[in-house]
């Protein structure tokens, strides 16, 4: 479905993603892990067409993903979420949901002026769908509230729900659980599983190894922009390269602090998490 062929991206002298090749199959859930600065988000930006690779090619469903037309992959069914969605303060929750849907009649200035009936019918269908998705993330009651006024966790859920309005074939998620409370986190995992049942492949950048272990079929570990492991989640802790990447030159046994999501920090010891998986 989605594949990267020998993709490299450098900023000035810094190589953030280094000769990465990967392949995401249908209905697969792939975790993208690695320490901070290992190039996970850059890779996600490359895969979604938000950044152009310095060299190499990314293909989705037979077409090349081009950063010059970053909106195009999304229309073809390759969608992404953001680490910090920064939702608009002066749009309601329901409006953000509708913006995620494909409403061709309403999006055309001509048709929205000349065929109000078609626009209304189109919207009615999408409002139903949006309310359903909002109910699944516990936001139905807030449909008419300003999206920017939600808590960080709620914004993430809304960002995710909006992305789902168009039934994507591949979904790229950037730290979906950072800042989301633990009970919702479990429900989110269920929800993502159901999305997969619906036919969507998922690529998840995540620091919470428990979440990754719960959910993913396969994990790609990155370090310094290169893929250092491609294995089942439970094999990660046994992979010497991965452990070294996380611990670096630190003495073993010292807990490692991984800051996730910028605003929300969490202390995660990779060995305990790995053991749980």
């Amino acid at each position, binding site marked *: 479905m989605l594949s990267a062929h020998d993709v490299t991206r450098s900023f*000035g002298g810094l190589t953030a993603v280094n000769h990465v090749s990967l392949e995401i199959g249908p209905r697969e859930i792939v975790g993208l892990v690695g320490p901070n600065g290992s190039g996970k988000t850059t890779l996600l930006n490359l895969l979604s067409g938000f*950044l*152009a690779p310095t060299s190499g090619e990314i293909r989705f469903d037979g077409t090349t993903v081009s*950063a010059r037309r970053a909106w195009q992959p999304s229309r073809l069914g390759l969608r992404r979420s953001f680490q910090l969605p920064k939702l608009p303060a002066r749009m309601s929750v329901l409006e953000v949901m509708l913006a995620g849907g494909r409403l061709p009649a309403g999006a055309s200035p001509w048709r929205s002026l000349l065929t109000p009936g078609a626009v209304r019918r189109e919207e009615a269908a999408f409002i139903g769908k949006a309310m359903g998705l909002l109910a699944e993330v516990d936001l139905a009651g807030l449909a008419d509230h300003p999206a920017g006024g939600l808590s960080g966790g709620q914004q993430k859920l809304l960002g995710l729900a909006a992305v789902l309005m168009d039934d994507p074939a591949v979904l790229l998620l950037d730290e979906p659980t950072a800042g989301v409370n633990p009970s919702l986190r479990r429900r989110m995992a269920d929800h993502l599983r159901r999305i997969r049942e619906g036919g969507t492949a998922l690529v998840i950048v995540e620091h919470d190894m428990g979440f990754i272990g719960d959910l993913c079929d396969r994990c790609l570990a990155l370090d310094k922009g290169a893929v250092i492991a491609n294995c089942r989640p439970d094999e990660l802790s046994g992979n010497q390269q991965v452990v070294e990447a996380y611990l670096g030159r630190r003495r073993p046994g010292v807990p490692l602090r991984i800051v996730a999501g910028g605003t929300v920090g969490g202390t995660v010891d990779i060995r305990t998490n790995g053991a749980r998986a």
Partner: protein
Amino acid sequence: MIQILIDTLIRTSDLALIALGLNLSYGVSRFPNVAHVEMAPLGAAVALAVAALFPGGGLVGAAVAGALAAGLAAMLLHRFAFERLAGAGPASALIGSLAIAMMLRAGLQAVFGTRPQQFDTPLTPPHDLWGAILSDLQIAAIAITAVCLIGFFAMLRLTPLGRSIRAIAANPALATASGIDARRVTLVTVFLGGTLAGIGGILLALVTQLDIGMGQMLLLPVFAAAIVGGLGSLPGAVIGAFAIALAETLVMRIDFGLLAADGPRYLPLGYLTGIGFALIVVTLVYRPEGLLSRGGRRA
């Protein structure tokens, strides 16, 4: 040839200090401050008023007073208006600075009248410099501009204040984290920016005359210089001013008739002021980060 260079230098000295002040303020306040150019007539008007009130004080004293007044005004505006406006985003700050520019211009007109005024400077016969002609005052203006530029860049490189300014311009968060009092340094920087614009205005008024509307005429050329050089880039401002001056001088003197071989044919003078605008557009479209940018080309 020499004449073109001299003309370019004269025009550069019109723009360079004001553009440098603009980029200096932009570096720490992060929005294009349209009111900045009004510091030029303000400084010149205060200098003229001081010169008229204290005839014994000499030109230098009056100029210093005018430059300091411009710096002070820029600092007060930043402290009481732009700090707050910038919090609401660059759009608010931009519109707010337009409003302040209008108020300053109207205020200056109300106080100083609409009629242009002149400093009492001696008129000297022109010098012939290898075929190029220029006057003592023009030489002085170019020299003072050069001295100010050298002094400013030396200050930026060599003093602790200069290092703080550069640190804040490069990364405000990091600078604050490393113990720099960002707010104080920002205010001092804005003060310096206003002072530079004030000196620029005083030099302009010295060489020709003080026109209260000078800010309006300077707005786009100065922004063109700042943008062509790269908004926020300090050497860029000077190079941008030179580029604008060179383009204006060259385009106005290129004889398009030579190509068509039917007598001299120049670009109509009415488009002279358009050269700066055209350069803004061209720069923004093809090299939005300006000539001097650290980031390199766009992806």
